């Protein structure tokens, strides 16, 4: 098996999958680092990739592409009923009309929380996530506890996030099993009347757009 040859014996990053990030095993981590560097060297020498282009990708996700994009879209929808309508009809198209948010790819679907229905997004099979709106997904989104439980015990998952919803609220879980991507449009919290779009964007957390949290208004 090709795999066996390419991998050394006991090279495990224990703990990551569980959301912890103690560097409890420096020798293993540095071994991975060396192996990744070796592969990059090979790909570069073969002319497959230009390392400067890789730098640019990394930098974009570290500095430009994050949940602020989604938060702006949510704040806009909270203050502009026509935009909200367009967003729920075709999110990719509606967001394309906004100058201050980067263009998003096809197949984005916005789903609206209401007093009756709470939406939650998961990808049980891998890690599908609306990168352009929320940046790269957090470790917990990609890890087994969330992926396994979200479709069967979403209220238990919400409890892990400290969120409790009324029993009568319908929980609507969207499993991202194809190239469609989902963005939750949370409910605008009470007490935010008259706030500007910028102020509103500040309270839209990443988790509120995944459905594992709610917008945060400081008391």
């Amino acid at each position, binding site marked *: 098996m*090709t*795999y066996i*040859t*390419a991998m050394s014996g006991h090279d*495990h*990053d*224990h703990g*990551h*999958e569980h*959301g*912890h990030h103690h560097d409890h095993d420096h020798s293993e*981590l540095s071994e*991975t*680092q060396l192996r*990744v*560097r*070796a*592969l*990059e*060297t*090979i*790909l570069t*020498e*073969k*002319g*497959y*990739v*230009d390392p400067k282009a890789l730098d*640019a*990708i*990394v930098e*974009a*996700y570290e500095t430009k*592409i994050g949940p602020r994009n989604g938060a702006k879209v949510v704040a806009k929808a909270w203050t502009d009923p026509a935009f909200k309508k367009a967003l729920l009809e075709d999110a990719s198209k509606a967001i394309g009309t906004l100058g201050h948010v980067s263009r998003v790819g*096809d*197949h984005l*679907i916005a789903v609206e929380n209401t007093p009756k229905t709470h939406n939650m997004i*998961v990808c*049980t099979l891998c890690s599908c996530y609306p*990168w*352009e709106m929320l940046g790269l997904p957090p*470790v*917990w989104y*990609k*890890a*087994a506890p*969330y*992926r*396994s*439980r979200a*479709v069967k015990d979403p209220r238990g*998952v919400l409890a892990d*996030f400290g969120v409790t919803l009324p029993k009568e609220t319908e*929980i609507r*879980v969207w*499993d991202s*099993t*194809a190239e*469609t*991507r989902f963005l939750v449009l949370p409910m605008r919290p009470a007490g935010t009347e008259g706030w500007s779009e910028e102020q509103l964007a500040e309270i839209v957390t990443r988790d509120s757009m995944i459905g594992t949290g709610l917008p945060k208004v400081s008391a």
Partner: protein
Amino acid sequence: MNGVHDMGGMDGFGKVEPEPNEPTFHHEWEGRVMAMVRAIGANGGINIDMQRFSRESLPPVVYLESSYYKKWFLALQRSMLERGMVGKDEIEAGRSLRQNPPLKRGTFSMSDVQRIMTRGSFRRDPPAPAAFALGERVRTKNINPVTHTRLPRYARGHTGTIERINGCHVFPDTSARGEGDNPRWLYTVVFSGRDLWGDDADPMLKVSIEAFEPYLEKLR
């Protein structure tokens, strides 16, 4: 394939543990892996379905205990080895030992970066009209291919409702095998929690999957 990656509805993995102020990457190498996967995916002919299948095909224990980008790295390296794009001897030597044909779209360079910052479209022209209508009750098939599929085990053999018709998309099951786009209609199919998990399920739970037309059959 019925791999450990297909974990919807499984028990025993413990609590969700969000990390406060999580960084984009926990190690410098994670960013490099992410960028290499994107670059080779964009220019190299290893499409997203092939990459997913490669990750799913990691040995189960490796899949479960490796960190996310570690899986990406192992699967990328494996995919490239399988396709002869790099050699075992090169991996061991840590450098290129021979010339290879260039990537299909050439070296991934600065001019390619902007293109991949926006996801490509998977929509394709429909080969036929959609077989199912909005609101129609359908049954998911019981399929168990050893190859890549996007119909999760927990949603096989269940009755649901067509809630959205999302156009006609590249079909992952065949795309992962290098058989081209083979476009198929894509639907959002919603199930009641009780249908999926039995009478003890939360009565207020609904779960949808994104289901390609070949996954569905008419209710008999």
